[in-house]
């Protein structure tokens, strides 16, 4: 320990700047993370949060400014260096090696050796103890394949803890988790805070910031535009700081007349995934699918959209039976689905936005069996105008921001208006501005007479958008609630099941 009394304990950043060429992405950030507290970091996509985290964690060097770590100068030149100094970053996108064991994943890159051989016994022993510290019951020998996203996220935390860091950065750890799973992560963060570690917590979910943070900072366009030392912070204040303008949460479409049924699903099921799903979706209605991650919501909508087969049940569009044996058949019947994983399932990131939008419609777009480059360009351009996509349509879609990518993805499926429009996690990883725009698009679609299904892990989103909410738990339909009945408590109660939830330890 240093004898000198360091006036600044904590991780202190002074005038931190990052520029790429002439573009400044981070403009003089002053921010302090105290031991034993949680700093909530908010801001729209592209506000500079990730850059800030990457500098602290040694992924990229700062272009200017200085940092001190518990009173000593700190300028990590690599993630390894940052870890050695006690700063760990837990990545947003988890990348596990699925066929290696939990223990091997935890010790990846620094497997303990004993006489030149990997010391499995000690590795598993240490894994067991760090997992036990986290309160996670996982066999370190089992492969990672088949673990839930929450469990994988816990492994990521365990991996960071093995290095015994004093400061831990969480970059949207709950982005792919449901609310109950997120709770597990929160518990870990409380534990870390109680142990006197400093935590930076980045999230788009403001409720989480309200729950967790002792101190909140908001970035916009590379600047720190607001900071609150008193928590909780009013949600509206945070939103205003993020977007720099006021807006409201009213995003419901007009009540449908319920005269005509667009989609009727009866007894839909697939062994091992879900069973007995039955509902009707009226023209102009938005039906929300709520439930925890793993409840089978995505499986159900994928079966309706022909992405996977269902074993039992019938699907009718406008009263006519549909055999959704492939996405192609479902599209022909008027059912389209915007899948949840934008990068893996929705868009071809290396291709242009226009080419992505055109992809499902090429056969109908062809004239004399030919598609001309101009046709592709024109379609992209018209969708760009219709959905207010900001960015060039002729460059790879991967270079757009998350919000614009999501708009490209939505517009891809709205070239020909379908009868049933299914969106799975429509606003994951997009900033608040784009989120509001997407809500407006969904509302307008319903108002125009389409049947819309919204699957979302964000309760506020499902409840805010939907006319009715179908709640699922463990592959079963627990009930359909009307807008009036669907209080967050009621939905949550159904989602966790009527019987007390049984925690299933992994075999």
């Amino acid at each position, binding site marked *: 320990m240093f004898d000198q009394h360091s006036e600044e304990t904590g991780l202190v950043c002074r005038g931190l700047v990052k520029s790429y060429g002439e573009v400044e992405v981070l403009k003089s950030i002053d921010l302090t993370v105290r031991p034993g507290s949680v700093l909530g970091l908010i801001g729209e996509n592209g506000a500079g949060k990730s850059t800030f985290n990457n500098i602290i964690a040694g992924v990229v060097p700062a272009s200017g400014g200085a940092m001190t770590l518990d009173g000593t100068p700190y300028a990590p030149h690599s993630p390894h260096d940052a870890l050695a100094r006690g700063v760990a970053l837990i990545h947003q996108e988890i990348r596990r090696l699925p066929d290696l064991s939990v223990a091997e994943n935890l010790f990846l890159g620094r497997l303990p050796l004993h006489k030149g051989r990997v010391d499995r016994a000690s590795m598993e022993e240490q894994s067991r103890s760090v997992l036990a510290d986290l309160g996670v019951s996982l066999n370190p020998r089992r492969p990672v394949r088949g673990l839930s996203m929450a469990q994988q996220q816990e492994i990521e935390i365990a991996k960071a803890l093995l290095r015994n860091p004093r400061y831990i950065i969480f970059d949207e750890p709950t982005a792919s988790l449901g609310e109950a799973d997120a709770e597990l992560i929160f518990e870990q963060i409380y534990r870390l805070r109680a142990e006197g570690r400093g935590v930076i917590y980045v999230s788009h979910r403001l409720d989480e910031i309200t729950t967790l943070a002792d101190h909140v900072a908001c970035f916009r366009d590379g600047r720190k535009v607001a900071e609150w030392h008193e928590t909780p912070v009013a949600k509206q204040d945070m939103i205003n700081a993020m977007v720099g303008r006021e807006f409201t949460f009213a995003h419901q479409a007009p009540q449908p007349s319920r005269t005509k049924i667009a989609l009727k699903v009866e007894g839909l099921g697939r062994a091992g995934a879900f069973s007995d799903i039955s509902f009707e979706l009226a023209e102009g209605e938005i039906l929300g699918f709520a439930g925890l991650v793993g409840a089978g919501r995505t499986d159900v909508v994928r079966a309706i959209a022909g992405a996977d087969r269902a074993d039992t049940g019938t699907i009718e569009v406008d009263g006519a039976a549909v055999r959704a044996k*492939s996405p*192609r058949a479902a599209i022909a019947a008027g059912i389209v689905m915007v899948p949840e994983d934008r990068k893996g399932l929705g868009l*071809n990131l290396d291709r242009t936005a226009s080419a992505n939008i055109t*992809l*499902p419609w090429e056969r109908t*777009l062809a004239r004399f069996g030919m598609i001309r480059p101009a046709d592709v360009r024109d379609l992209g351009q018209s969708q760009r105008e219709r959905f207010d996509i900001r960015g060039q349509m002729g460059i790879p879609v991967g270079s757009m921001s998350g919000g614009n990518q999501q708009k490209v993805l939505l517009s891809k499926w709205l070239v020909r208006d379908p009868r049933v429009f299914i969106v799975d996690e429509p606003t994951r990883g997009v900033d608040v501005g784009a989120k509001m725009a997407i809500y407006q698009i969904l509302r307008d679609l319903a108002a125009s007479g389409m049947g819309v299904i919204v699957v979302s892990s964000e309760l506020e989103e499902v409840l805010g958008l939907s006319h009715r909410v179908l709640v699922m738990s463990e592959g079963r339909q627990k009930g359909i609630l009307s807008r009036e009945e669907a209080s967050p408590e009621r939905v949550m109660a159904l989602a966790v099941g009527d019987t007390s939830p049984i925690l299933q330890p992994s075999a």
Partner: protein
Amino acid sequence: MSDTNHTADLSGKSVAFAAREREGHTTVTDLLKSITRAIPGPLLGLILVCIVFSWLSPYFLTTRNFINIFSQVSEIGIMAAGAALVILIGGIDLSVGAVLAVSLMVNAWLYRDFGVPFALSTLIGLGVGALVGFVNGVLSTYGRIQPFVATLATMSACSGIALFVTNGGPVTGFPDWFTNLATLRVFGIPLEMIILVAVYLCVAFWLNFRPMGRALYAIGGNEEVARLSGIDTRKVKVLVYVIAGLLAALAGLILGARLDSAHPTAGIADLLSVIAVVVIGGASLAGGSGGMFGTFIGLLIIGVLRNGMALLNVSPNLQPVVIGVAIILAVMLDRRSQH
């Protein structure tokens, strides 16, 4: 062809030159860099190779030699057109050379030993090529066998069948009208060169303008995205393997007409050249990138290298070494021009 390249090259050079002069620091490296960026890697490589050989050999820049180059690469080129499609969807077809052999042998065997009319035996030979392609496609899609493994198996089987039908012996004596096609010229251009160019134009048209052809890029980029977009990915993939098989059989016909004989081991050695052509042409084995223009350039690079080295009396044993270096250089140049 080479003339237009040179003029394009020069005009690009002068524009870049002017721009640099305005900035007040013209260097040769800057100039070279700007040229490298303006021209796709494979084309730049071809231009460089042509310049070098025309400087080293007085015979290189003659019409007759250019026609020679095309004749020497026509079978490889036709096979490479199919292989480029397979590689574009992220697959690989190791069986092309063996398909060439088996389709030609079956054709010749039916004609000579069973008296099947030659037109019919030719159709059957093409059918054999398409059938093997179909098997490749079905195994690697519905059968869920990795294309490398599936086509390795069919390559082995086809080589065996090619030897088995005549017990390893070659077949000679095709009809005269057929072997005459090998020397037929239309307006001074050999028929095989016309066929080669026609194949590339047809495939390029399909790939760029027809919905199903365009789907190949989507499948190669991300197959699941393509499937969820309503593309019948398995059907398209099977079709691609069928096209590859059919083109290999067509290449076999050209070879048979030229040699007036069918050898059971013909074409087997061409496999690596075919893949080299596609890779030099800028395609990635991961799929999703590449095209017919690049493949054609890749073909010309291989053709020019082989031809030029022959003119310079380089030992044939050393030629594969140069091709190997060319593959690496082409891939590196291509990566540069993408940045």
